[in-house]
């Protein structure tokens, strides 16, 4: 969606972008993509060989005809699948994601708490992995072929090899129970009340509300899931950043910068990392998707009420609207990330035009 073209036109990034047309086109393809996502999810879920009503009502109520009838009516389950899909789309246009068959609550409401919980972990993990990955990747590239490089290579490959679902419980057992240095499960200590919702990210909301104690508690609870999740992405980023940095280290412009007598640190930050920023950005986008996946396997252990748990429960309970909601949200996150990555491309690289 981006292209390089060399033309000596205006100077400032924002003057150069024919933003409106671009955004419109981008929106168009996004809408199509979302349509595809909803369709795929819908079809997949409709394939499920189970009865969502029986599943939702459970033993007792499933045998009460009045309740079953009310349910069928409420969720429009008596209609044909294409018809239901159309209704879903119509409601979607009005911002209505439907009502969970399982809980009877609006899917949008449920996602409103689940999504920020997961985003908070994923963002945390991205920040941690980027910080660690940049450091380790750059060191490894500079020490390539030497012992340090080999050690970092093994370490990052190990990070890519650990089954997260296994590590999660082991880490919790070790750091919370045995060592007592990690706080308990959940997003907050039971003694705390969640902050007033602004962003839904507890750490941010505590800060906005000027509550440092709450902030630190939220941060502490975030630490373990973030670390466990980021192990994989640290490995991913370290390997990748090493390669990207290596590539840049071998360029003439870095050699030229060194020939200018600039201090090593400045060469790395201003020239090398700057030069490697585009591929790094791309892989960060990929890492975000990996993290979203990872949460499914980790959230249960940390009693984290996030998207992963929600997705799992919806899928397992045949909660069609819930699954659709997850597909939608995840699709939107994907699009937003891609969009952000492309925008950042433009900021980081003057050669890139949004066309």
């Amino acid at each position, binding site marked *: 969606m981006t*292209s390089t*073209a060399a*033309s000596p036109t205006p100077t400032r990034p924002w003057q150069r972008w024919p933003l409106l047309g671009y955004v419109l086109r981008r929106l168009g393809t996004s809408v199509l993509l979302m349509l595809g996502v909803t369709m795929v999810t819908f079809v997949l879920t409709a394939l499920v060989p189970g009865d969502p009503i029986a599943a939702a009502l459970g033993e007792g109520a499933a045998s009460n005809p009045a309740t079953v009838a009310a349910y069928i009516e409420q969720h429009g389950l008596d209609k044909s699948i294409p018809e239901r899909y159309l209704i879903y789309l119509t409601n979607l246009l009005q911002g209505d994601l439907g009502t969970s068959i399982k809980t009877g609550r609006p899917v949008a409401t449920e996602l409103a708490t689940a999504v920020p919980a997961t985003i908070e972990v994923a963002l945390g993990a991205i920040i941690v992995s980027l910080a660690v990955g940049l450091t380790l990747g750059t060191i490894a590239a500079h020490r390539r072929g030497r012992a340090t490089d080999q050690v970092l290579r093994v370490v990052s490959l190990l990070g890519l090899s650990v089954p997260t679902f296994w590590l999660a419980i082991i880490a919790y057992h070790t750091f919370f129970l045995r060592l007592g240095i990690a706080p308990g499960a959940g997003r907050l200590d039971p003694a705390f009340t969640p902050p007033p919702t602004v962003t839904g990210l507890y750490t941010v909301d505590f800060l906005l509300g000027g509550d440092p104690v709450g902030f630190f508690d939220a941060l502490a609870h975030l630490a373990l899931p973030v670390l466990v999740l980021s192990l994989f992405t640290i490995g991913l980023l370290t390997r990748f950043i090493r390669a990207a940095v290596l590539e840049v280290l071998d360029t003439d412009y870095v050699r030229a910068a060194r020939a200018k007598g600039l201090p090593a640190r400045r060469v790395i930050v201003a020239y090398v990392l700057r030069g490697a920023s585009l591929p790094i950005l791309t892989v960060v986008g990929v890492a975000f998707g990996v993290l979203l996946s990872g949460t499914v396997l980790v959230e249960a252990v940390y009693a984290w009420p996030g998207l992963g748990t929600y997705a799992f429960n919806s899928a397992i309970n045949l909660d069609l609207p819930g699954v659709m909601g997850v597909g939608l949200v995840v699709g939107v996150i994907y699009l937003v990330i891609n969009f952000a990555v492309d925008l950042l491309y433009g900021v980081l690289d003057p050669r890139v*035009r949004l*066309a």
Partner: protein
Amino acid sequence: MSTVLDATDLTVEYRGHRTVRAVDGVSLTITAGEVLALVGESGCGKSSTARAVIGMEKPHSGEVQFRGRPVPPLGLRRRATDLTAMQMVFQDPNSSLNPRKRIGDQIADGVTAARARGLTSDTPEKWLGAVGLDPAMVSRYPHQFSGGQRQRIAIARALAAQPDLLVADEPISALDASSQAEVASMMRRLCLAAGAGMLFISHDLSVVRIMADRVAVMYRGKIVESGPTATVWTDPLHPYTKALLGAIPRPDGKGVLPAAPDAEAPAAWHEEMPEALDRS
């Protein structure tokens, strides 16, 4: 002599953020047994012309005729058998051979193409010998050769197809300075021996001088001067041709700095001089 290639009023455009007109109304004819050189600075549209001629690029307007029939763009369809009489040699020797295929097999493809047109062609070994390589090397892979050798193999493959027209896009610019002249003269020799015409593209006028019958000087998508090589070389008319020739430093040890144009592109270079075209 028979005309093998006749391109009239070729225009090539690249669409993108801004449309680039790379070739702007170029006309060329090549007869059998003739070497036409196309020279000009980097980015003036030489490669684009070559690509349009061979059919790799669909011209925006204008027409290319090979032996009197139009050349269709190279699409998803298989190329018509008689059009395999047009062959090309590319600038970059590293990418012109399939790295996963023995060079003998690659040359053999040329032989097959010639056979398909009912012609005879030598064996790959013979062709290797003809371009100055050891025939015993047929079963090697491209990476076992230096760039210069690879370029020779690419030439052998093109010639093995017994072409009537060889388009060579800077076939020697990637070569070591000391072997450029030699490869160029070999190409000329083999081409003429087969009675084929050649479109030879180069930015190096001193090479062109020794091997081309006619030369066309291109500037910013247009041909500004053309005619027999010796005429253009000794008596350039167009200011751009003059600047080009004047800027070549001579290895004579005299310490003479070549003349440098004042600005990057003087207005005079854009001038159209009909009298400079088709000189004799």
